[in-house]
């Protein structure tokens, strides 16, 4: 789960860089970059952190 989260987080970065080639308009790029940002945040907050929280000492 944590490794998948890392891949998703990196994917978000890749999407934002890809916006440079996928669109030439400012608004188009802005939308794609924001999508990339959301994907990265999902990777961190929704996948990596929960994976590590599962084995946190305070849960035992």
């Amino acid at each position, binding site marked *: 789960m944590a490794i998948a989260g890392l891949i998703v987080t990196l994917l978000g*970065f890749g999407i934002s860089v890809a916006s440079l080639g996928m669109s030439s308009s400012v608004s188009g790029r802005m939308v794609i*970059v924001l999508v990339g940002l959301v994907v990265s945040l999902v990777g961190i907050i929704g996948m990596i952190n929960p994976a590590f929280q599962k084995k946190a000492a305070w849960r035992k």
Partner: protein
Amino acid sequence: MTRRIAILAVALLMVSLAWAQAPATTPTPAPEAPAAAAPAAPPPAAPVAITDKDLTSVPTPAADARAKGDPDGSLTGTVSDVVVADSKKGLTIADLANQAGQNRVAINFVWTLITGFLVMFMQAGFAIVETGLCRAKNANHTMMMNFMVYGVGMLAFWLIGFAIQMGGVGALGTLGSTGVLNGEYTMKLFGKDFGLWGQNGLFLMHKGTYDVAVMVIFLFQMVFMDTALTIVTGTVAERWKYAAFMVSSFIMGGFTYPLFANWAWGGGWLANLGGNFGLGHGYADFAGSGVVHAVGGITALAMGILLGPRLGKYERSGKANVILGHDIVLVLLGCFILAFGWFGFNPGSTLAASGNGALRIGSVAVNTMLAGMAGSFGAMLYMWMRYGKPDASMSGNGLLAGLVAITAPSGFVNPVGSVILGLIAGVLVCVSVEFVDRVLKVDDPVGAISVHGTNGLWGVISVGLFADGKSNYGGSWNGVNGSVTGLFYGDASQLVAQLIGVCTLVGFVFTFSFVANWIIDMFVGQRVSAKAELEGLDMPEMGALGYPEFELKASAARM
């Protein structure tokens, strides 16, 4: 009642700031009066060339006058102090021109060095803020991490980090370099050159980098890098194994920080988003909200997740306990030291006090202090309204949050913009601390993730919103003519460049830091034993107590 007054005060402040931020209306010009029969202006006098011979007639202070001393300073610093290349020929125009050039570079050298010294002193501020926010049983350990991060980071940066960051930046215009830092490694993407890392400058000897200007820029960039490293020690304080701290800090100073810094400041691909893709002036980060603070804060988040919370921070139900620091006096004193050091951080980032629009240093300094003030007000009022008391440690964090947020835009915004973004930063840091603590359940004893991570990202974004297009650092920024201008002043593309920088920080820097530290965890182990943590890290990790004459008592609430 207090709450109502506070709400009213904030509302009034926001309305007045919004009004002041509105662009001034241009007054309608008065109709021109019919041209009067004014006397014709005399033709401009033809320029007269000055020759070397003319310089011989410039009066110099008499030797007997100089022999009596110069109490009013009128005899010191005259033509007789200009360096002459050939004493037989005497003073020439070439001597004057060379002196003028050297004076400009000398002013810029001294400015950059002194502001770098101020930034170095911020290490002391970080050390006592973090130690004050930790428990007394970990004082030696926390201070030692803050002390040695300076040396570990410097070593890594000298060996390789500086070359990666600045090895391909090109000529350092304001510092008069000969341009030996010209080895950027690039790859082609979307038909454009993407600068990835620099290659010149290993050990400050490689490929002609034993150079006076290179030494100045090394010192300045080194202390910035160390600031980023010391952010991480706060988040994982009270549970980080000292050996792992050493290895992790070396990796961050040698690779993580320099890579992103190259992309933003070293001529890398983020800086060239303007020239290559028409996105404003490319990623613009005047003094490092992103490069320094967000890199530190994002790495701190990765480390906080990886190490897990301190014992006793969360109950089995998930409820968060407050673990108080041991010395609020140290905390607020440290915040003041940091605010003082920030006058090196932001105004120093012009790398000049002479030429290239560098006289804007006054504006940069004022923006810095205003945003810090607004940040401390924002946090104090938020805490007062929400919890009934003006919390001291969060007021300090609000000050720092405002300063972090203004770091990127300090060179591009006006005073009203600075106050607005500082005020937002002050509230944002409080909201972010609660989110990190209660929702993410990531234990951050000093609030570094929120102060530096969240507000570092906010600072980067705020350039794309508040940059007013009035700055002019030599006529261009990142190779794009004109001034950096944000969305509120008409350029939405600058905001896109800033958001790509944010995605790089969140997506790339986080992943890089997390993977590197996960590997360190596998080989060295990142976290101390539960026994050592409960005892306090001073004896198990450092072999000596921070306060040996104090009797430290453990209680359930302060475990």
